[in-house]
């Protein structure tokens, strides 16, 4: 973490939030979603979803397939656009800006700059196939943040050590196992010094015996105080690591609360059914 300072400059250039924006987030809030609505054609994927993630918090979103949890996550860094509502990350409107009281889609550069501060881990890893693990990790720091190459390499090696893959630095993704690829992908996201990490079913594409090594890295991150939003089917992880659990179904947040409440005394019928189904597996 010795190089922290060089990246802070990047974050501090954020323009202040326009005062006219309704309910700007307090500083303690990392993510604020307000009445997000998202349609794919006729299908209502997000139906008036509101949620907040506090700084340093680990929020786990669970729910059946098609419940909208992945879409919600993707909207947070604008990989999907919401049709209405507001999403803020660290007090800043995501993907839009306010011009004369109206929301206008942000310029590409602004969106890119915002995304550079949000780590995203994909279900299918999406490592750059033509680059080694190390090259994958330094790519964005060098070409997006403009960090000197040797500095980026030093940092990348440190991150590879952290995820236990130092010896795989010069290996191409297709020679790595799924679990190793996902750990490299996490290191790649961390190399941007994100203030928020989003995990989209990061272990769903893995063979069962490889899930543990990825969850271990995620757990370690959570312990270090990283703000995380995690979409997962790993209920054990949710129960142990989450500060807050959100259960979604059919595009709405059905129930949310601390993990003990959601898992031990779920209030809602649908939550009970879902958890019952999972337990029956």
């Amino acid at each position, binding site marked *: 973490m010795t190089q922290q300072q060089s990246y802070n400059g990047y974050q501090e250039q954020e323009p202040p939030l326009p005062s006219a924006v309704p309910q700007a987030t307090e500083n303690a809030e990392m993510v604020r979603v307000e009445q997000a609505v998202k349609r794919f054609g006729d299908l209502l994927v997000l139906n008036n979803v509101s949620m907040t993630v506090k700084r340093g918090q680990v929020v786990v979103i669970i729910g059946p397939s098609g419940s909208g949890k992945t879409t919600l996550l993707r909207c947070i860094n604008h*990989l999907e656009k919401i049709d209405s509502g507001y999403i803020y990350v660290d007090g800043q409107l995501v993907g839009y800006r306010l011009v004369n009281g109206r929301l206008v889609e942000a310029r590409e550069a602004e969106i890119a700059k915002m995304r550079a501060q949000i780590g995203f881990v994909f279900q299918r890893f999406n490592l750059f*196939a033509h680059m080694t693990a190390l090259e994958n990790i330094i790519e964005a720091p060098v070409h997006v943040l403009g960090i000197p190459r040797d500095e980026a390499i030093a940092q990348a090696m440190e991150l590879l050590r952290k995820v236990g893959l130092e010896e795989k630095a010069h290996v191409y993704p297709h020679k790595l196992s799924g679990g190793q690829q996902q750990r490299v992908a996490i290191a790649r*996201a961390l190399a941007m010094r994100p203030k928020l990490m989003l995990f989209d079913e990061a272990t769903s594409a893995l063979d069962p015996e490889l899930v543990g090594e990825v969850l271990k890295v995620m757990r370690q991150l959570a312990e270090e105080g990283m703000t995380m939003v995690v979409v997962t089917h790993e209920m054990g992880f949710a129960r142990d690591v989450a500060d807050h659990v959100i259960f979604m179904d059919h595009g709405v947040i059905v129930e949310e609360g601390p993990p003990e409440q959601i898992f031990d005394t779920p209030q809602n019928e649908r939550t009970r059914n879902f958890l019952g189904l999972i337990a029956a597996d």
Partner: protein
Amino acid sequence: MFDWDAVWKFIVSPFFLQAAWTTLWLSVVAQLAGVVLGLFLALMRMSRFKWLSFPVQVYVWFFRGSPLLVQVLLLWDGLPKLVPGLLFSQITCILIAFSLNEAAYMSEIIRAGISSVDPGQMEAARALGMRYWLAMRRIILPQAARVIIPPLGNEFNNMLKTTSIASVIGLEELTGTAEILGAPTFSIFELLIVATVYYLLLTTLWDYFQRWIERRLDPEYAAKGGRPGRRPGQKSWAQRVLGFGNPPLESGELIAGGHGGAR
């Protein structure tokens, strides 16, 4: 009577060496222009904006749907009538027609190459804060190159031969030279043989060159018989063509300074 002496005389003559050079550089310039223009057309074609993609569809429809010879004549004979005073030289006229025509074909080839890259690659690049052009240059195109380069080689082979069309407006490339030199002495047949020898020489050399590139690009893949999965050999193509790669692979020499990144 077939005059062998004429063949021997002309095959080493400066006329044909000059003509072969004209054919070669015409092909190279038109191909390069076709690739560059084709890249932009491909990206426009893949845009989600109709006003960008539709004109490209029309463009490709026109240039692929009508003969190159007609396109050349339209530019050579037709344009000055349409715009009086606008008269291109033969070379300019040919280069424009050939580049525009080639761009139509290249745009489809490049589009196929880009489409072959997993969309997750672009998503990952965007999620890391990369902007469209940076992601294209650093992530998508190096991987698309694997798919683009073999048909690109074929296109260039075609281009070497298609330049013969330039002879109809009197350009002295190989075919034109054969006709012009052969007409007064009634030895067109002999000189066309000479031209054919040169065409075969050029295409054969290119063929060897293309194979050399492919061997050079793909040794690992060949040695190991590829890897299982959806995209075999992906690594070595993209990495070596554009100079990516880790030190032990000795990449980066082939395409000098293709990008500013890896060594």
